[in-house]
């Protein structure tokens, strides 16, 4: 099953990249939709960040330990200052380990 999902995801990814390069009409996306699509990464990734930082293992909001919130805050500062994925991860994990 997992291989099927990997292949399907790969195909969907390729379809998005190839869409406008192809001569296939059905892969073309109307302009009005592009206005929304450019927010896709921001929306999807923010959702995952929020769920991993503010939700505990049982799905309850703002119930888990606050060390993840502090780690995310420090990591956000590092991200804005350094623009580096590596530094952001190292800094965030360091704070998380420090606070236990």
């Amino acid at each position: 099953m997992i291989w099927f999902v990997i292949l399907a995801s790969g195909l969907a990814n390729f379809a998005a990249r190839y869409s406008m390069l192809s001569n296939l009409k059905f892969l073309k996306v109307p302009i009005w939709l592009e206005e929304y699509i450019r927010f896709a990464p921001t929306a999807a990734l923010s959702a995952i960040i929020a769920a991993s930082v503010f939700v505990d293992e049982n799905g309850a909001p703002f119930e888990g330990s606050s060390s993840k919130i502090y780690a995310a805050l420090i990591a956000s500062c590092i991200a804005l200052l350094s623009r580096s994925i590596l530094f952001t991860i190292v800094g965030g994990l360091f704070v998380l380990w420090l606070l236990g």
Partner: protein
Amino acid sequence: MQANWREFWKGVLAQLPLQLGVVPFGLIFGVLGIASGLSAAQTILMSSIIFGGASQVVFAQLWSIGASPMVTGGSVAIINLRHIIYSASISRYISVLSLRWRLSLGYLLTDEAFAVSFQEFENKNKFAHYHLLGGGLTLWFFWQISTIAGVFLGTKIPSGLNLEFAIPLTFIAIILPKLRSLAHLSAAITASFIAIFGQHLPNNLWIIFAAIMGMVVGGYVGKGKSQ
């Protein structure tokens, strides 16, 4: 050397500095893939089948929390929708090329490759497609190698280090610098709010719901503005 291959090597060179970001990300994905319970083969082959950093990390994250295949695949697809924008902005130049070129460049069209080679297309460089091919292949090569290295590292790192928290940290590094417009900020806040309070939705549908609502709000707020 012929002008077209000179352009190819220029693309390779232009892409090299970005590998400072790509290689650690590939290593991280390799480590995370193993930490999320994927096998070494699944983690490594995902880097050539999906070939997209953020979407592969999302895949690993959702798979590890037991999201359904539909939700996992759907989320990966939503994150990759942005490539349609890249594809659209170079389609004028590429749609005249042969099918072989279009398929190859379609496969290699990543955030970084687009960022580096887009200017060549804008400048009406006759061999801009060679530039993109060189840059795209360079990134592909480094992404595969660093994933494999990460997988071998990942099998040697003890669990219990909260390493899975590197996933949201990765996304913080990608997204935060982009939240400079009101539209992006609104999209992020809407999606986060739904993600936090929508956890009780079945099949982890919160992620799809949050992403779509974030896009709708972002698109509405940013209507008519190019940035």
